[in-house]
């Protein structure tokens, strides 16, 4: 099948994604093409040829056996006729017609034997036949002479010679009949063997074809099944060639890759939307937090203006100081907000996870304070850097923190514990709350898109699924453990920036530093 060049199909993807897609598609297309259709046609043709060949062999064999049987019949006929001739000879004054008739039969047998003599295989058999033939020739001329003999004495002599010859011919004929019988039996036995072998070969060939075609169909199907499972879990990395050649399934792979590229584009948009949703959740908190210092500045300024003359210098100084610090406070809030949203490039670079957690804590601080949630960070000193996109990781932790806050309506501790697992080349963060927990029946769906237990309008059900896809894109893992009524813990593990085991985690990681 001829496809239009992949690059022309769509131009809406971001350039690195477009490059990746083109790379994958080229890799798929660059292999030699062995379509299943051609393989099927070839195999069936081979099958047909093999069947035809075996049919021909069988036909030849049958003809051979028939020839042998004809010969055998001729020999037996000769044997019995010569006996009859002998009998005829014994009767005195046998008619010339009978003799002529006997001669004609001998001639007939001779012709049959002569025709067959060419096909004799072993020299011993050939010799036996040629002897028989020469004796038959002698016998025939003897019969000729008997026909023309009139003298009784001469006739008697000739008769004696004929009788001796007949005995010899009968003896040779018997011997040959015996030999031919066993030869026919041999031929039949060997034919049995031959047909059995042909059947076995055909069966083997069919099995081989079945095996190869089952494999050619089932292997890719199983592979594509695995792809769909992987895709369902939110892993949208492109399909790479799995075999050395391509076939009809490669066309499917091309189409799936095209779809995956679309998914990735949509997912990037979804992550962006999820970020806005998370930000929306904390907007009230931020507005509240920002309005406080603004209000303080406003009322302090008002107090200064109203009572400017009545206030002592000391009081004025105190008010101005309030304004100064409240302005600074407002600035800090704006700064943490900017920290949270800056760095839009989703490149994977070395990132200090503690900075990410701290920036997220700052932005969610007000939400936590208002809900009586105490934040506790446990982290050993000298943590290694992880490889990640800081803004996306902040989004993940914001979602986890807000989830924890929502899980504890009456407040409680939110514990964040960071551990380096250098042996595994990763760093893990546990986000633990002591909230209501997730019911066991909801656990398998915790990261499913649009799965939410919140009232309509309170949650999109996308938060955790976005966390999942972000962490997956980082080549990390996110898991959840929960105990009803005791709390929920999210375990997030990310590959280290210089970890040696990170290479195999995913193609996206390899791309990171080149573009950083």
């Amino acid at each position, binding site marked *: 099948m001829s496809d239009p060049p992949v690059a022309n199909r769509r131009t809406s993807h971001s350039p690195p994604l477009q490059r990746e897609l083109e790379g994958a598609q080229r890799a798929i297309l660059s292999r030699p093409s062995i379509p299943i259709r051609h393989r099927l046609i070839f195999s069936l043709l081979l099958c047909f040829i093999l069947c035809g060949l075996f049919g021909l062999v069988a036909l030849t064999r049958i003809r051979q056996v028939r020839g042998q049987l004809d010969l055998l019949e001729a020999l037996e006929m000769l044997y019995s006729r010569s006996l009859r001739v002998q009998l005829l000879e014994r009767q005195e004054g046998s008619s010339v017609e009978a003799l002529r008739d006997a001669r004609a039969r001998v001639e007939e047998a001779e012709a049959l034997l002569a025709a067959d003599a060419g096909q004799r295989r072993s020299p011993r058999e050939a010799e036996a036949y040629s002897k028989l033939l020469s004796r038959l020739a002698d016998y025939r001329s003897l019969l000729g002479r008997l026909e023309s003999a009139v003298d009784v004495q001469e006739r008697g002599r000739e008769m004696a010679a004929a009788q001796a010859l007949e005995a010899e011919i009968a003896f040779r004929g018997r011997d040959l009949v015996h030999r031919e019988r066993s030869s026919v039996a041999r031929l039949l036995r060997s034919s049995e063997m031959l047909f059995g072998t042909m059947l076995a070969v055909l069966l083997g060939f069919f099995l081989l074809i079945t095996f190869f075609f089952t494999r050619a169909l089932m292997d890719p199907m199983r592979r594509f099944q695995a792809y769909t499972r992987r895709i369902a879990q939110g892993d949208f990395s492109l399909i790479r060639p799995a075999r050395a050649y391509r076939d009809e399934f490669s066309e499917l792979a091309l189409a799936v890759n095209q779809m995956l590229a679309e998914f990735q584009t949509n997912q990037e948009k979804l992550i962006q939307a999820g970020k806005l949703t998370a930000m929306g959740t904390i907007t009230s*908190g931020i507005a509240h937090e920002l309005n406080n210092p603004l209000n303080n500045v406003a*009322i302090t300024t*008002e107090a200064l203006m109203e009572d400017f003359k009545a206030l002592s210098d000391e009081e004025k100084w105190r008010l101005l100081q*309030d304004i100064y610090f409240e302005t600074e406070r407002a600035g800090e809030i704006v700064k943490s907000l900017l920290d949270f949203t800056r760095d839009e490039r989703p490149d994977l670079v070395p990132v200090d996870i503690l900075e990410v957690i701290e920036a997220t804590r700052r932005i969610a601080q007000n939400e936590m304070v208002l809900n*009586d949630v105490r934040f506790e960070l446990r982290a050993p000193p000298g943590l290694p850097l992880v490889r990640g996109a800081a803004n996306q990781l902040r989004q993940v932790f914001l979602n986890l923190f807000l989830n924890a806050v929502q899980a504890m309506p009456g407040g409680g501790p939110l514990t964040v514990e960071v551990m380096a697992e250098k042996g595994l080349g990763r760093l893990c963060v546990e986000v633990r709350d002591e909230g209501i927990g997730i019911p066991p029946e909801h656990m398998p769906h915790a990261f499913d898109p649009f799965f939410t237990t919140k009232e309509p309008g309170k949650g999109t059900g996308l938060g955790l699924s976005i966390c999942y896809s972000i962490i997956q894109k980082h080549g990390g893992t996110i898991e959840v453990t929960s105990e009803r009524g005791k709390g929920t813990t999210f375990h997030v593990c990310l590959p280290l920036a210089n970890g040696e085991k990170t290479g195999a985690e995913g193609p996206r990681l390899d791309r990171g530093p080149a573009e950083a």
Partner: protein
Amino acid sequence: MAEKSVLVLDDEPIVGDRLKPVLEREGFEVEIFTESERALERLKERSFHVLVTDMKMKGPSGMDLLRFIKEKAPSTQVIVITGYATIETSHEAQALGAFQFIAKPFKMKELAKLVSKAARGG
């Protein structure tokens, strides 16, 4: 006319600091609180003519105080201050019998006027 009493609750200390002299000048007896737990205790001890409270705070919220006061001393007029006004919270406050709903940042003059009006109305 006896002095009318006002309780001001805001977890921002500056709010109380600035409002106290302004309201006192208007002739009110003013008590300032920055923690809602303390304010709640005080409200259990005595009644005020007017309660000025922030909405979102650590501990009991402005809405909790409003609910409490309307049960215990319905004559107390409540002015709710909020850093983030939504229609829902505004409606809820009105339904619970709040006198007025005011958003930050506000003008002290306006708030003082509101308190006076509330005190007269109550």
